């Protein structure tokens, strides 16, 4: 009977709804899938980015060394004047002795280029330390040239045509000879961590940039933390409601979104050209980064101050504290964890920043480790930028290695911020 009715009666609303249900459920699934896909895509990008960096950069932490038997000929190295000895001649001679059949200028140059130019300095340092070695034959491990290094790490395929690779067949033969005699091995690359920049990848290190970053960040922290917290306290607790204060707030919000390179223009025009501060100095870099991170610190400090319940301040006022005392002795300490978290995140942002520093000359090629905030220096991200431009294959892995170090520092800072938040966060 029901069936008959259904046949004749007009379609009920529920039927219309049921008829469309499958389609709607499908579209629901599609929409959800799209959401999952987006997240997967974003995380996939992250994985690809990190994967490509790590796969290129892990080998930067190792450096190939070659063992040479050098005869410290007293004729070449004067015991009286150790600084002027012909150390590279000694090294070349030991290479010639190892491969006596090498002849001709071009082949010899190829042979000499197996070991780094820094080998001579290393030998010199060793002899100066122990002058008694002169006249003896010693075994010494010296860094290999960057091309040999890259080849030994297996990044160059020996099957490709000779003219397409920088390392030539005869050099490969010599390296094979080294391998047979156990004269070549990979060691932990200490140079990478304790040397300054260099044109030779095998003697280039990040220490100069790390020290530069440290000085720059210290200047930034010492200036932006007190000023940022003071501004936040003023704006949150003391500021009257008027047009001028509104103007300050608009300014802070806008500065937070001004492109960083504009701050570089400010640094160049005002700090360097107008005030005549030195170019490339981490002091100027710190000033520029201070102006850049101030809005971040002010905004997060204000949020932290705001999250302290007003009853705390009122209680202090109630027992006779002045507004200033209530804030400095009661509100500020409770807001400190939040303020510190915001500051660390601001510092992490400053550590990764490079665009404004290019403008104020921190992109110069600087070999020396900076000894103070007015010395010419560079910072880690700018060092990465400089190395990324270098054509040598060995700089590619060092760039990635430096990126890994930079990311390591950032992860560390963020972890401290997270722990701080977890440890001291209070819910009122």
């Amino acid at each position, binding site marked *: 009977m029901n069936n008959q009715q259904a046949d004749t009666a007009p379609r009920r609303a529920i039927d219309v*709804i049921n008829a469309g249900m499958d389609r*709607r*459920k499908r*579209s*629901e699934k*599609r*929409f*959800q899938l799209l*959401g*999952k896909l*987006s*997240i997967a895509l*974003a*995380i996939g*990008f*992250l994985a*690809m*980015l990190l994967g*490509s*960096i790590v796969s290129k950069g892990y080998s930067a932490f190792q450096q190939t060394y070659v063992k040479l038997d050098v005869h410290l000929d007293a004729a070449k190295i004067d015991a009286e004047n150790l600084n002027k000895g012909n150390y590279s001649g000694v090294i070349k001679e030991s290479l010639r002795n190892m491969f006596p059949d090498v002849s001709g200028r071009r082949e010899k140059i190829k042979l000499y280029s197996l070991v780094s130019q820094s080998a001579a300095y290393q030998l010199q340092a060793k002899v100066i330390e122990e002058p008694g070695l002169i006249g003896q034959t010693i075994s010494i491990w010296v860094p290999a040239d960057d091309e040999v290094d890259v080849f030994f790490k297996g990044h160059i395929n020996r099957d490709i045509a000779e003219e397409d690779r920088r390392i030539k067949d005869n050099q490969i033969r010599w390296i094979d000879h080294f391998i047979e005699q156990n004269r070549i091995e990979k060691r932990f690359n200490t140079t990478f961590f304790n040397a300054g920049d260099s044109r030779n990848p095998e003697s280039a290190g990040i220490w100069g940039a790390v020290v530069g970053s440290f000085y720059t960040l210290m200047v930034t922290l010492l200036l932006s933390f007190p*000023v940022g917290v*003071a*501004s936040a306290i*003023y704006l949150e607790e*003391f*500021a009257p409601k008027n047009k001028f204060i509104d103007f*300050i707030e608009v*300014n*802070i*919000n*806008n*500065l937070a*979104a*001004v*492109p960083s*390179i*504009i701050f570089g*223009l*400010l640094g160049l025009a*005002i700090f360097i*050209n107008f005030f*005549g501060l030195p170019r490339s100095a981490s002091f100027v870099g710190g000033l520029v980064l201070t*102006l850049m991170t*101030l809005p971040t610190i002010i905004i997060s400090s204000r949020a932290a101050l705001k999250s302290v319940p007003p009853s705390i301040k009122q209680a202090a006022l109630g027992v006779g504290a002045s507004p*200033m005392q209530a804030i400095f002795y009661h509100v500020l300490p409770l807001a400190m964890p939040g303020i510190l978290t915001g500051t660390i995140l601001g510092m992490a942002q400053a*550590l*990764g920043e*490079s*665009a404004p520093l*290019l403008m104020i*000359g921190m*992109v110069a090629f600087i070999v020396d480790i900076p000894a103070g905030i007015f010395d010419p220096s560079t910072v880690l*991200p700018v060092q*990465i*930028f400089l190395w*990324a431009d270098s054509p040598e294959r060995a700089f590619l892995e060092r760039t990635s290695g430096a*990126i890994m170090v*930079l*990311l390591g520092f*950032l992860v560390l800072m963020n972890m401290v911020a997270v722990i701080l938040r977890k440890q001291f966060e209070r819910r009122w």
Partner: protein
Amino acid sequence: MQIDILFITLMLLSSAAFFIGRQRASKIVQGQIQSLHSLPSFYGFFAAIWSGLPAILLLAAWVVFEPAIITNIVIANLPEHITSLGQSHVNLVVNDIHNLTLGNLTATEPSAEIIAAADQYKSLQATSHMLLTIISLLLVFGFGLVSVRKIHPQLRARNVVEQVIKVFLFLCACIAILSTLGIVMSVLFESIRFFKMIPIDDFLFGLTWSPQTAMREDQVGSSGAFGAIPLFTGTLLISFIAMMVAVPVGLMSAIYLSEYASTKVRGIAKPLLEVLAGIPTVVYGFFAALTVAPLLRGAGISLGLDIASESALAAGLVMGIMIIPLVSSLSDDVINAVPQAMRDGAYGLGATKSETIRKVIFPAALPGIVGGILLAVSRALGETMIVVMAAGLAANLTANPLDAVTTVTVQIVTLLTGDQEFDSAKTLAAFALGLVLFVITLLLNVIALRVVRKYREQYE
């Protein structure tokens, strides 16, 4: 005395004043500190501020103005035949004098007059430092003595100290205004100098960009054309590609995370997106130039397309990845601000979850999302490192994403790194580009912040 030693001495003396003031306050009332108006330490701060502040302010002013004044005196004493050679020559001489006084090497072998001038500079500097030391020490002791003398039980030391602190807090808050002012002045003044050389409409509407100015009349390839349209189109092209990646992915991730994801998924995915936001841009630039660009080029070759190795596509794509977390966190905030009642209403009418999102939540959140997207666009326009490393230098006027284009920020960096001459149109052009960039991002930010604020007020 050296300036830094003097500064430390002043600080030490001022701290001594703190202890003396505090001591005196308790002594005056024979330890009955309840009869004092303020706590004893406020009397200490009172003495410290009075003794230290004037001297430190004087020191700061001295350090700022001293070099300019001494230099002017030295220039005034230079012989006629040097000063008559014109301003730029005098600047060179002054530079030599500065280098000589600092013990650095000079560009040319210094003449007797310049050595004499350098000696004069040194002696003036010594006199000035001597004077500064004497005056600031007098200030410290004078004001310190007066302030300690002034301490008595009725003195409202706390009010004075708090007022000084309040002024300090206010001045700190004003630094935001100062830095905006600094930005405006630095880009505006240099831009005005630039527009005196190159007419503003040639700059804004010109179609060729080739900032090499000719040094000689007959030089090849140094036309010195400053038409910025190719830079603007290049910037827009790359930003557009970036937004095509960032907006859909960011928005859908935000929707999924705030409406569908379980707490566990959200707890993992959200921090991962934040990691994407925390990666320095130079790393993205390296990734774009050395991983994505060769990948695209390889893919293009296998498809028979000719993709430039510095294509807009690679830079835009990676910039898009960088902006995903910005779009997603801003949209996440906005979506969460939509009242639950609106969702419940839609569910009550039988809507599915996706229908609720598309037909109720999304329209309600649209103004906020648009505001967030505007902020993201302004970020994309001003992004520097990715384009410096992955986009080209050639100013091509093209809309083809496979070609190499250049952007405003790339040109600012290339014009301003390396040797600069501050009176050439080439260097000043960078400031004009900076001005355009600043004005455009400022407008976008003001509009975006206003839209987002309006939207929030609507639901609060």
